[in-house]
Each structure stands twice: as C-alpha cells, then as structure tokens.
C-alpha cells in the first residue's frame, strides 16, 4: 500500500516537474482539456461520425500545439481552437469526398436502401435530410452543422469561419432551401 502511494507521489511529482519545465505544455494541456468536450461535439456535428470526430479533434490538437506561438491571448483560445477544429473537419470531409468519388456506387447503395426510423412524416423528413446532408456543398454543410448541431449563433459562426455574417446567412438560406425542396419532392 505504501509502495503504491510512493509510486503515485512519484508520478505526481514527475508531472509537476515536467509542467514546470515546460510551461507551454502545461498551458496547452489546461486549455485544450477545457475545450475538448465542445470540440468533440462540434466535430461530431460536422462529420456525423464518432471515430472521424475523434481523429479530427486529435489532429486539431496536434495542429494547435504546433502553432501555439500564433495564440496571442489565452482568452481567445476557445475561438482559436474552434477554428482549428473546423478546419480539421473540413480537411477530413475533403479527403472522404475524394475517397467517396473513388469508391463508386457507395452513395447509390445508400440511396437504394435508405435508413428509416418509422412510418411517420417526421421520420420521412429526417430520412431525406440525412441523405441530402451528405451531398450539400462543404461550406453549407459546415454552416448547417454549426448552427443546428452545435447551436452556435450566426455571429459566432462568422467568427469561427472568418467570414461575414451575411455569408453565413446566405449559406444557411441556400442549404435550407435545398433541403426544403428535397422534402417537398419526396412527398410527390
């Protein structure tokens, strides 16, 4: 028991010494750890895949560590890291789109065997949205995920994406229009 306590104390001391020796690493761990949950939710909302989201968040954390010198103010970490996470997701989506283009027939199979929850109208709508979401232009898909998946406000989305609020609104409008038309067509 004492032996175990000594080991724990040694580990705690080692960690403390390491953090003293590398204040940058300590700051990184403290700030990233505080944002990990929301970053993970954000990535999951954008990518729609738990494992992809994990990898995207990890990639974003690696990128944040590499570019730590660019962070001028720790108070801006949330927005800064959020942008990195979104860029990481965007990279993954681009790569998966290229893969999808190579894996011929994947989308067709998906369309031929749609996932349905039940027989209700809402379920049908969800089915249409689920299918169409993957075909939306990348930028629209990200804006939709940030707005309705991560519940971010339009100004926050504009800040995260470094675009004008008007651009966010127009992308949302375009995406919702596509989805609405798709739902209407599915009812005919």
């Amino acid at each position, binding site marked *: 028991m004492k032996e175990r306590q000594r080991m724990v104390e040694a580990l705690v001391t080692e960690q403390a010494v390491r953090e003293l020796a590398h204040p940058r*690493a300590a700051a*990184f761990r403290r700030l990233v*750890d505080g944002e990990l949950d929301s970053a993970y939710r954000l990535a999951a909302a954008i990518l729609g895949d738990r494992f992809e989201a994990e990898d995207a*968040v990890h990639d974003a*954390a690696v990128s944040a*560590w590499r570019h730590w010198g660019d962070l001028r103010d720790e108070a801006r970490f949330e927005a800064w890291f959020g942008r990195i996470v979104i860029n990481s997701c965007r990279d993954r989506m681009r790569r998966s789109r290229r893969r999808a283009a190579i894996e011929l027939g994947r989308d067709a199979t998906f369309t031929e065997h749609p996932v349905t929850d039940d027989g209700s109208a809402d379920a049908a709508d969800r089915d249409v949205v689920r299918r169409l979401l993957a075909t939306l232009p990348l930028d629209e898909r990200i804006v939709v995920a940030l707005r309705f*998946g991560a519940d971010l406000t339009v100004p926050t989305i504009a800040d995260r994406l470094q675009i004008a609020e008007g651009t966010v609104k127009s992308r949302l409008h375009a995406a919702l229009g596509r989805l609405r038309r798709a739902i209407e067509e599915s009812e005919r």
Partner: protein
Amino acid sequence: MSEQADMRVERALRSVLDERRPAQGVPLELRERVAEIPDRALSRIDGPLILRRIARVDVAGLAAAAVVILAFLGGVVSRAAIPAVGHDVTTVPGSHGLDADIDRLGLVTGVSDDVAWFVALVAVAILGITALAYRGRRMRVLGVTAGAVLAAAMVLATQTGVEFGYFWGPTLRLNASAQPPAGSDGPTVYYITAEPGQPFAATFDVHNPGPLPVRLEGLVDGSSPDATWLRWSALWYDDKNEGAVGLTSEAKPFVPIDIPSDGHLTLFVVGRAGRCALGPAFQLDQADTYGYSTIGEAHLAFSVLGWPGEAVVELPFRIAEPNPGTCS
C-alpha cells in the same frame, strides 16, 4: 406556408444532427492522446533537432539578446588602449593645450573585430534556431525581423567610418615651407626638423560621412614604446573647432569621442622623430641629398554601434624624416 416548411426542415435537421451528438463526453482514450501531444513532440527532439531544445530554453534566448545589446551598445572593441606616459594628463573637460611630450596618449595597438563577429554569429545562429524551432508564425516573424535588424545594423556598422575632412597644417617642428616638387601634383611634404626622439605634430580634421555616429577610439600604432624609428606617439583633439585648422592651445588630451553623422573633428597627431633623424640642420635646397622615412596616412580606430573598425585616413600631406645616411 414557407415558414412552416422551414420549421419542418429545421426540426428534421436538428433531429438528424442530434443523432450525431455523442451520447457521452470525450472518450478517455482521446483525452489521453491529446494530453500526450506535448510529450511526444518534445521527445522527438533528437540528432540535429537537439538545437530545438536549446532554443526552448528561454535563458539562452535572453542571454543572446543581452549579448547582442551589450555588443552593440556597450561596444565590443577588441583593442588595447595604451596608458599615457610622461607628464600628467588630465581629461577634465576644459583642460587643454597640446603637450607633445606626453607619450602614448590616445594610442591603440590595433583593432580586431573577431570578437564582434563571433558575438554576431552566435546571436544570428540563436535567432535562426529560435525562429526555426518555434513553428508559430509570430516567433518566425520575430526571429526574421530581429535577424534582419541585426544584419542591417552590421552592414551599416561595417560600411561606416571616418575620412579626411578639409583642413590640415603643420603644428610643431615640421618645415612648413615645403611645397610639392615643381611640376608634381603630389601632396605637400612636411620635413621633420625635430631632434632624434623629439616630438613633432600636425593637425587635420576628420569627417564622418555615414548616417550613424562614429565613436573615435584612438590612433592605431603598433610600435613598441621603446621603438627608435619614426612613429606616432600621441593623439589630441579639439571638438569645438568644427573642423578648421586647430590651435594647439585649444587641444585636449584624447578620450574616445563621438563624431555625429556628417560631423567633423579636429585632431592633433603627435609623432617622435627616429634616432637617425637629421634634425634642425635640414635645408630644403639639399633635400635631394637625403634619404627619408615618411608617413602619409593615419590609422584611426573607431566603432559604430559598438562594432569596431579601423579607418585608414589618407593625409593630403606627407611627413618626411630626412636621414643623413650616416646612421645605422
């Protein structure tokens, strides 16, 4: 109707995106992987990248900055000032009057910029390593900017110096009647009429043509104090004369002094006749019968932003010591 449709789409969207929301928080495994990122990055330091570890030591960066500042502001002038001998020399402002018997005043044995180059190279290396090691844009910009400023300062410092100004004249035991030989456009020759070992003096002004202030450090003379040949023996100055021919009564014992950009400084150079000098017996009409030792330039030690340099000031006159040829 359209509003209802939008609500419907939004409801469906939120529902689909809710499905994507992870039921639990971040997996522990991901949290651990992220926490390990700094350790992995730091443990990748090996081989030549050991330099990265050096760059990360803030003390090294601070030391480099301190060395650079000391080098440029403190003046790393690798020279050996020679203590004056002879009469007491006072450097109290206002004390003046040329005393040519004071030997070794304002002389330096030589100028070397080896230390300055070494310090600059170390500073550039550390700045470069810092800029490369930190991948952040801010650190890179900082490193590159500091390097550029350092390089610009070095270029300016090494390209600046002093040159001969406008005025000159004999001051002590020099035959001032001598003119360039007939039909020659050569410089005026002043023949030394001092006894062997006695001092003589001339005056001229120097000009700083560069954009930076130049600190005059002394007159370079590497000869031994016991040397018995023609040599420089002391340097005096007059900083109130604005470059005109100086009066010996206004001369002050030399101390390192700054010459502003485009500024002038009147100098008095004192020399000692060699032991074979002919002395006051010299007659101009017999000039062709003697051999001569001559001095036609003065080597001045200076520093710009602490960077040492040596200016070879071509004098518009020659100082010639007639030698009867019977001395060995």
